[in-house]
């Protein structure tokens, strides 16, 4: 046992110390009463050991013995007071303890000694899951100190809050903190010494009013129960009588509203106690009334509190320690999941709609009875009753109206083919051969060879590959347009087009854009706007729809300019040549010839046969594809009986006549020029049509302000011209369905069959009549 016995490995301080302690026990006890010198003398060799070795030795001694060892020597006592021994002890005993210097939270960590104590407590007193947690020890020590040492400890709520805060700042979850705090409270309460001070502390805790604090700062019911339990079991004898019943009343009050299910959980701790208490309350009505009074004072608060506690407990109970994927499942998670489920359920439900109660039979009956329809037509006014003049002869240049021969400017008999011998001959032979009607649509034996001949003849005349015959002029346009334009396609159209085109546009359901009547600048702007605005426009079908000679104004469309624009903006052109076939161009091939535009540039040409060609029906021509497509898609062609064959044969003959007599068109041109010149200075009227248009359109120089007024005035003029001057002119009437915004006027259809004297007479008569009729109109 010499100091040379230095290799520490062979040194067994434990045995040594134990031996030494056995030997020296009496001396150590004695040493308490002697001075240090004697003590140092007792064992010199041991005393000379360096401090770190001593520490090594001491920490191997059971902790319980340390107090005795500290008494042996002053130096040793100082060692025990010093930092390093405790530090080493911590390192040794609790190798997993944290070495961090900083310590968060309100409860101090203190020096190593206190830490050792805390760790010790953690391990031995409130050990949780075999895991030593330093904070637990510290909080335990803190709480114990607060309760034991201070004469007037802070309210338990503050203590509890401090503990919880400490746990939370050390990274515990709220639930764990709450759980741990409860355990620490229980541990401290269990380990309090049984003395008067403890009794006072417990009484204080019991008498403390409950402060409603949110979870987790609310003390758990278990802690409160333990306080009362301790008071009633361990400190029963300390109570004065009044105190006892006060406390008992509070206990009753606190734990009474707990429903039975929960009570059972509590009752398993101290069943007997409650039963005794209940008996006692029954036997002491006075005390019971006191208890009741107390109970009533804070009944509401307590009830809420208790219910909350109960709910927490009830929820905590089944899943107190459940862990799913490392998450502690406690009450609120449970509630949150439940809420989530409810929300999802509600979301999955259809939104609430007030139940749609169908009308009952009686209600429908009533509604049906009450409903009063408008009359089928509006009331008949005077203007609706006007009857057109009735012709007693063919509508040639001279016709008989009311037994009087009149000069007829009301028929679009441009070439004077009405009553033409060749036409009559061909019609007669066709009537004899084919009968009048075709008795069927083209697809179902309504195709007669003359139809095919006529189609070929028209195509041949205009220089196209094929054409298709319609049985009525009006239906041509409104059947052909919907064939090629569907929803989404773009149609740019002159605002002055006639109703047949308007209806076709409406039926096509395409996007329709109007431009100013016969205004090429407006057209260009419109096209520019459409192409610029709409990037998709390239993929849509785009059309420009114009009339060659506008029926509503007598204007001629500048086709060459339209073609330029069309090619620039890549639009297709639909041209209605109803009033220009047989009229414009030196051989009467229409506007294309007039403007020297090859007909291939026009994609779709339609025309009525009922004007220059003096028959009926209409046709559409263009490329073979355009024509073939219509044969199965055009409703006016597919679903209608075909043109009566005699009219088709008349059309063939009319074209023949036109080709054989090129002077017809030149005669017409001359006539137009004469009339134009003659009408240029009619009082109150101005010629609004193109000088080469076969429709001479006379407009009021000054409108009356309304279409109706204009119409009335002009009608008056026309009637007088017919009755007094035997000149049959007509006013361009408008249907209520017609959306054309152009002004109304007198429309005169010039014919090649009019003689010069007819024209001069007409001019003269109109001047005369206008002077009379428009006199009042012009003057003011």
């Amino acid at each position, binding site marked *: 046992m010499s100091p040379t016995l230095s290799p520490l490995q062979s040194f067994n301080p434990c045995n040594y110390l134990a031996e030494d302690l056995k030997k020296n026990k009496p001396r150590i006890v004695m040493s308490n009463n002697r001075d240090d010198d004697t003590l140092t003398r007792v064992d010199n060799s041991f005393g000379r050991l360096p401090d770190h070795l001593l520490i090594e030795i001491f920490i191997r001694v059971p902790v319980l013995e340390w107090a005795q060892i500290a008494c042996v020597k002053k130096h040793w006592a100082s060692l025990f007071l010093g930092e390093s021994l405790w530090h080493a002890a911590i390192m040794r005993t609790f190798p997993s303890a944290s070495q961090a210097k900083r310590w968060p939270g309100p409860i101090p960590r203190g020096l190593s000694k206190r830490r050792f104590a805390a760790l010790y407590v953690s391990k031995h007193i409130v050990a949780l899951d075999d895991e030593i947690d330093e904070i637990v020890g510290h909080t335990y020590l803190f709480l114990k100190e607060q309760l034991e040492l201070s004469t007037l400890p802070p309210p338990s709520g503050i203590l509890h809050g401090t503990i919880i805060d400490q746990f939370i700042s050390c990274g515990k979850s709220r639930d764990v903190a709450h759980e741990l705090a409860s355990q620490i409270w229980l541990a401290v309460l269990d380990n309090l010494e049984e003395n008067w001070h403890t009794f006072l502390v417990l009484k204080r805790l019991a008498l403390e009013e409950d402060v409603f604090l949110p979870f987790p700062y609310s003390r758990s019911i278990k802690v409160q129960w333990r306080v009362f339990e301790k008071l009633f079991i361990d400190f029963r004898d300390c109570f004065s009588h009044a105190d006892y019943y006060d406390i008992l009343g509070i206990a009753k009050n606190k734990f009474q509203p707990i429903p039975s299910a929960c009570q059972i959980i509590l009752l398993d701790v101290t069943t007997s106690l409650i039963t005794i208490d209940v008996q006692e309350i029954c036997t002491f009505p006075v005390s019971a009334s006191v208890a009741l009074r107390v109970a009533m004072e804070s009944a509401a608060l307590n009830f809420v509190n208790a219910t909350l506690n109960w709910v927490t407990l009830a929820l905590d109970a089944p899943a107190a320690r459940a862990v799913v994927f490392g998450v502690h499942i406690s009450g609120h998670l449970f509630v949150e999941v439940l809420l989530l489920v409810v929300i999802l359920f509600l979301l999955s439900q259809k939104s609430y709609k007030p139940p749609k109660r169908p009308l009952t039979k009686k209600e429908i009956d009533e509604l*049906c009875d009450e409903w009063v*329809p408008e009359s*089928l037509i*509006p009331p*008949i006014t005077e203007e*609706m009753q006007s009857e*057109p003049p*009735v*012709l*007693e*002869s063919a*509508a040639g240049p001279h016709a008989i109206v009311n037994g009087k021969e009149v000069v007829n400017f*009301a*028929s679009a*008999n441009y070439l004077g083919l*009405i009553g033409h011998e060749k*036409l*009559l001959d061909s019609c*007669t032979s066709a*009537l*004899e051969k*084919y*009968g*009048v*009607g075709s*008795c*069927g649509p083209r697809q*179902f*034996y*309504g*195709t007669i*060879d003359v*139809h095919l001949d006529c189609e070929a003849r028209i195509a041949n005349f205009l220089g196209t590959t094929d054409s298709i015959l319609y*049985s009525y002029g*009006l*239906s041509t346009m*409104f059947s052909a347009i919907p064939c090629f334009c*569907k929803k989404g396609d773009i149609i740019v159209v002159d605002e002055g087009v*006639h109703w*047949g085109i308007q*209806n076709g546009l409406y*039926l096509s359901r395409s996007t329709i854009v109007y431009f100013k009547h016969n205004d090429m600048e407006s057209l260009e702007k419109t096209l520019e706007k459409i192409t610029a605005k709409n990037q998709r426009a*390239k993929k849509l079908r*785009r059309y420009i729809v114009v009339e060659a000679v506008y*029926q509503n104004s007598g204007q001629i469309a500048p086709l060459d300019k339209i073609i330029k624009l069309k090619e620039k903006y*890549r639009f*297709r052109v639909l041209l209605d040549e109803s009033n220009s076939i047989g009229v414009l161009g030196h051989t009467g091939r229409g506007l294309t010839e007039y403007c020297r535009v090859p007909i291939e540039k026009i*994609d779709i040409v339609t025309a009525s046969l*009922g004007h220059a060609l*003096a028959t*009926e029906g209409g046709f559409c021509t263009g490329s073979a*594809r355009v024509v073939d497509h219509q044969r199965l*898609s055009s*409703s006016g062609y597919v*679903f209608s*009986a075909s043109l009566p064959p*005699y009219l088709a044969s008349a059309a063939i003959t009319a074209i023949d006549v036109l080709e054989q007599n090129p002077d017809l068109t030149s005669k017409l041109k001359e006539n137009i020029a004469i009339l134009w010149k003659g009408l240029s200075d009619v009082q109150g009227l101005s010629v609004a049509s193109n000088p080469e248009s076969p429709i001479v359109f006379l407009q009021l120089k000054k409108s009356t302000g309304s279409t109706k007024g204009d119409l009335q005035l002009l009608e008056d003029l026309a009637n007088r011209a017919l009755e007094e001057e035997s000149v049959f002119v007509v006013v361009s009437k408008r*249907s209520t*369905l017609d959306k054309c915004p152009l002004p109304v006027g007198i429309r005169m*259809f010039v014919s090649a069959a009019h003689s010069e004297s007819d024209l001069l007479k007409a001019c003269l008569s109109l001047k005369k009549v206008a002077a009379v009729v428009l006199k009042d109109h012009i003057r003011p």
Partner: protein
Amino acid sequence: MITIPYLTALSTYFSYGLLFAFGQFRDFFRKIFDWWQASNLQGYAPICLGLEDFYIRRLYLRIQDCFGRPIASAPDAWFDVVERYSNDNNKTLKRTEKISRCLNLGSYNYLGFAAADEYCTPRVIDSLNRFSASTCSTRVDGGTTTLHKELEDCVANFVGKPAAVVFGMGYVTNSAILPVIIGKGGLIISDSLNHNSIVNGARGSGATIRVFQHNTPPHLEKVLREHIAEGQPRTHRPWKKIIVVVEGIYSMEGEICKLPEIVAICKKYKAYVYLDEAHSIGAVGKTGRGVCELLGVDTADVDIMMGTFTKSFGSCGGYIAGSKELIQYLKYTCPAHLYATSISPPAAQQIISSIKVILGEDGSSRGAQKLAKIRENSNFFRSELQKMGFEVLGDNDSPVMPIMLYNPAKIPAFSRECLKQNVAVVTVAFPATPLLLARARICISASHTKEDLLKALEVISQVGDMVGIKYFPAEPTKQLQHQHQQPEKETIKLE
């Protein structure tokens, strides 16, 4: 309603599926070969988009020869069908000079006025010489001649209404009148199988359109009640007016309208009745005055009576008959009256003359005979067809009788085989009927003689066996006859 046999429906769908698949296949190759043509468009969108003309290119063109057969004579009981040939698989058909004389079972020549008539034709030619072929003017301008006036009076008198107005085309009559009498805020309740002209007119009017099940008055009542109670869509304002549009005889079904029931319902619910008598006027009724006469409906209960002159009268054009005020209003604002060339005077004369014949005003009983004949012919032919086991649609007395074919392949087969034996029939497929319900349509005329009809029946029966369109078992007595015919047919085949 037509109940299509399950197996037939399946095979029809299969056929169309096959046609569609092959069509797509061919289109695919066409696209490959024609890809460079896309640049030929020079920035224009193609004039016929995508599948728009697929049906025509890939289905219709294959059997094009069954439709639109040109004729070279009047569409009388027998007519001359011009033969055609094709050098490019039916893509284009060329006419030849050859003609074959065929029995006409296709034209709407119900009373036989299509051909030259001893009473009508001279008068028609007279009017032609007097008034020429056209007036080149609209009715309100210079297009009203004395003939037009006479015609309107004559028609009003014939149909039993105070006034009438005539137009140059039946299709336009429907499609231009409906927008005039009804507009936004109105409701048009239309039979589901109404003619396209009514559909177009209704669309053009801007009114709300609802459809009731074909010829089913209870459903009409249901629709009426529902819509009166509900009012206009979205705003739920009450309707301005409701017009129920029905046809007298449905041209693709041959069914006669259940007019009395419909009129009663319309009266109850204050809806106006619009009756399109395109096929029935002149053809049915004791004196040819149409379904009203046939079914005993007072014409005063029908607000608007429309009809065409194309069918029974062998002319062209259409009329609207109604109250004086209605006609006055129409004459004031109807676009077809204001903007369209008036009806050709000879055609007008044909109508006047034929009405006179029908009414016996020509001094003979030919009209009554014609009416009796068409009725007799129709009922005989219909019952014979039914006995043979064909699925024939339509009602008795109706001169229109469709024979159901269903399968697309049977359309050309039936048509071509009949034509081979000089019987011209009309086959109707998709655009005019639902896809599944292809049919052949027979229109009987008063000009058909008994021999004509017997020949037609024999041919149709034979072809029907060959094509397999006798969907019902034949009647026992006929079956015997039928069995006798069987070996004959086989020998024909062997030859």
